[in-house]
């Protein structure tokens, strides 16, 4: 049993995607429907990294693989594509604070007032990853995070989580929280965004994904739902020739 109280305006760092660029219109006589006006999500770029440098990719892949480690049944964060997911997010509106309130003055507030940082997520990662590797090198004989054995990686992440790793211009604890949140999103968001590869996260827990109609199942109690997950993009088996 666990108890949790949600205070209003909790400081969850939640950002926003660009919506369709609306121009003011006059609506009269009929709904303003136009063919092909829908705005489906853009598939992530998965054949290369678009934000991270090669060094950053090594570090991030090593981190996400400790936050969600591989096991015999389910891939870890790296093979599930969490780094690809975070890379695409940082290159997009999430990475740049698009749509957020960015007017000054910036000043520190209480936890109830939410994040007041002027550092965008893209800048947080760029600086934070460099700082983390600097910390590892100074403490572990010149080795970067990715070069450390798994147990030492976990120790370093534990130190970051506790707030004992000093970062420039940002709080290490908060940075770590963001990485954990972003990694989980990469593991459980629709595969269209580059993570949750082969729907590995959904298969692990039995979440059927983008299915839409459970009318036949609502009154079937304590019975495992038998169908495999589907993505917004469908399922590999539905489009022969495409993996």
């Amino acid at each position, binding site marked *: 049993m666990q*108890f949790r*109280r949600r205070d209003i*305006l909790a400081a969850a760092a939640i950002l926003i995607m660009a919506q369709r660029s609306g121009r003011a219109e006059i609506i*009269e*006589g009929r709904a303003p429907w136009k063919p092909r006006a829908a705005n489906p999500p853009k598939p992530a770029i998965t054949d290369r990294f678009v934000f991270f440098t090669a060094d950053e990719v090594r570090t991030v892949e090593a981190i996400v693989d400790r936050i969600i480690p591989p096991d015999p049944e389910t891939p870890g964060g790296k093979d599930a594509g969490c780094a690809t997911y975070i890379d695409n997010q940082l290159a997009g509106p999430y990475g740049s604070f698009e749509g957020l309130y960015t*007017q000054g003055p910036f000043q520190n507030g209480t936890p109830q007032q939410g994040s007041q940082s002027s550092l965008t997520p893209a800048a947080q990662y760029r600086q934070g990853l460099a700082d983390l590797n600097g910390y590892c090198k100074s403490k572990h004989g010149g080795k970067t995070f990715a070069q450390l054995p798994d147990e030492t990686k976990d120790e370093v992440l534990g130190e970051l989580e506790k707030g004992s790793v000093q970062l420039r211009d940002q709080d290490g604890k908060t940075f770590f929280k963001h990485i954990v949140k972003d990694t989980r999103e990469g593991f*459980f968001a629709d595969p269209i965004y580059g993570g949750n590869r082969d729907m590995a996260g959904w298969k692990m827990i039995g*979440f059927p994904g983008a299915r839409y109609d459970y*009318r036949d199942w609502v009154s079937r109690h304590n019975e495992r739902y038998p169908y495999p997950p589907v993505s917004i993009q469908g399922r590999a088996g539905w489009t022969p020739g495409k993996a």
Partner: protein
Amino acid sequence: MARKLPHKDVVVVGLGWTGSILSYELAGAGLDVVAIERGPWRDTPTDFPPTYDQDELRYRIRHELFLRPAQTTFTFRNKMDQTALPIRNWGAFMPPNGVGGGGVHWNAETWRFLPSDFVLKTHSTERYGEKFIPHDCTVQDWGVTYDDLEPHYDQFEYLCGTSGSAGNLKGKIQEGGNPFEGPRSRPYPTPAQPQPFSHRLFGKAAAELGYKPFPQPSGNLSQAYTNPWGVKLGPCSYCGFCEWFGCGNYSKASPQTTVLPALILKTNFKAFDNSEVTRINIDSSRKRATGVTFVDTSGEEWEQPADLVILSAYTIFNVQLLLLSGIGEPYDPVKNDGVIGRNYTHQTISDVIGFFDKDNYIFNPFISSGAIGMCIDEFNGDNFDHGPLGFIGGGYMGQVQTNGRPIQLSENVAEGVPAWGAKWKQFIRDHYQSTVVPGTGVHASFNSYRDIYLDLDPTYKDRLGRPLLRITMDFHENELKMNAYLTDKFAEIIK
């Protein structure tokens, strides 16, 4: 210089539930109506179709359907002696944006207030004595009663097609409904939704403890329905992407599925979208509104003269517009005078998460709807004796879990389980199917106080250079006591 548009009988500011229903009624009465909406036109096939509506990241985590803080936000502080800071990105509370307003993303939990809620001040004073209400609590009677509003509750439920089980039909208590509700003149227009496993278990546990559980009244419909304005809704498919999402299925009551298709056909109605009202214009007597000024997306300013100006945006934006237009006397908490911005309230929410035996329970939490659930009303309003407890107010509670969406649910682990790593992964793998996360499990009241109010921020401005609205709000002792008491009661049932 604003360009002047032709005069209208009515201008409606904000085309959500209130704006669309009033537009329909006033246009039906023969008046020329124009609605001005800050956000875009939204409709099912273009904005949330079932081909891609089931997207936790886009709609829940990144808040696709909500206002952009860059467009406008508000500043927040708990206490009057703190500096309010802007909400730069949304936390737990965020305003919607666009045609349909909050009616697009809501859960569609369709409750009525209790008869005693309308006369809380008089009722509490009579039952518990004058000193029982906290001294700085500014609660008042509404000025209208449940009986005054009953026909309108009825009309709204029949507009929405609300699914539920009546608990009190014209004063006669009905088995299986909420025995504490005020008398209703008719049954719900559609029967209650069937309950998934965990919701039914909660109902069973509550009944065993002697409570009277009932299905939550739901605007996610149990069956197809045609409303009195000829608009058709389909049956809910329990997709688990309801609140924070639009409905791709035409089965959640919203302006889009109940009003707009009928409204848009009226030749004496039109709407401007992506247009933000910046000011209510008043005449030289300062007693009469003459219309509004708004800006479109190109930054061009327009004046819309009208005989009647209806403010039907979200409450805090209505208050902001009144303050920016110099209408009414702004509330001053120190002098305790003025009206505009006084008595702001919100809600209290708490939750108890139940981790059940993974070998015996498969809940399929993804099979759900926004307003599904079994609830009890024993601890709502004044349905219980507050005398020995020393607080006023209350709330309903229930297993009202709306989804199995994994990004958010994977935050919930038992005490002692880390937030990451192999142990976290193993816990989530083992317990996803057997965990109960009610969400708004205890959904309760928040009374008004002298130091909880709205005014204009002295520092921060919106993109047009207008002061942001400042919210000063904190939980008071009464609310914390009430919430703790209710949460303990809720935990007993979950156990």
